């Protein structure tokens, strides 16, 4: 039998952490989170179709502390997946594959997504709180 003590792919534990790894992992993680978040979109639409009482209940849930924490998380996931998704679409054309460009665009995805989520929630808060 082969010696299975050797590190097996993806052996993350022996790599030095780099931003490119983080952006790749985050893209999948946020993708999974957003797939769960689709249920929220459907819930909102169903409550709107069901009538005022159901919609108010939906708004109350979203405006609760837990709801807001989830919304902040989901909005960051959305912005991150959006920024990094655009980065991947550009890379699909063959652009930006030198190592410095790759590292720079990785940081750009992370930073722009954080800036966007801060801007949006700052706007929400100055407009008088969520929901």
């Amino acid at each position, binding site marked *: 039998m082969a010696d299975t003590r050797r590190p097996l792919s993806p052996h993350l534990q022996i790599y030095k952490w780099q931003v490119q790894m983080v952006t790749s992992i985050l893209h999948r993680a946020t*993708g999974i989170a957003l797939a769960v978040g*689709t249920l929220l979109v459907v819930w909102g639409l169903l409550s709107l179709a069901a009538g005022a009482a159901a919609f108010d209940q939906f708004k109350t849930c979203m405006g609760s502390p837990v709801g807001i924490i989830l919304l902040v998380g989901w909005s960051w996931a*959305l912005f991150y997946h959006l920024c990094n998704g655009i980065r991947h*679409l550009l890379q699909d054309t063959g652009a930006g594959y030198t190592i410095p460009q790759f590292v720079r665009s990785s940081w750009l995805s992370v930073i722009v997504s954080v800036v966007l989520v801060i801007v949006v929630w700052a706007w929400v808060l100055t407009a008088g709180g969520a929901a």
Partner: protein
Amino acid sequence: MSTNAKDLRNPLKRARGLGSAQSGVGHWWTQRVTAAALVLLGLWFVATVLSLLHADFATAKAMVTKPWNALLLILFVVTMFWHAVLGLQVVIEDYVHTRWKEVVLLVAIKFLAVLGALAGVLAVLRIALGV
């Protein structure tokens, strides 16, 4: 030997139909096309939701009733679930190594996505058509 000099695959491999360029390319392209659509639809959706901040039931309902909004919402819901299924499929194929669990999950996400997409579309139609 081969009619295509660039094809490095053994003809037997090709005949068995186990080479590439089957459904993989279609999956790849559909994921990219839905991604590009979601860049636009996602930004529109976020802007729309933000414009409905503090909106009461009647205002939110009036938004969905507008034909363009209803159309874009349906497009968003369908594209969102479509893209989610393609992404989750890849994640499941990569990480679930027990064949029966993999198949069960692949079928389950498709069932759930169709259910979610139809529920969302039906909700939009009920609101938009006032039924």
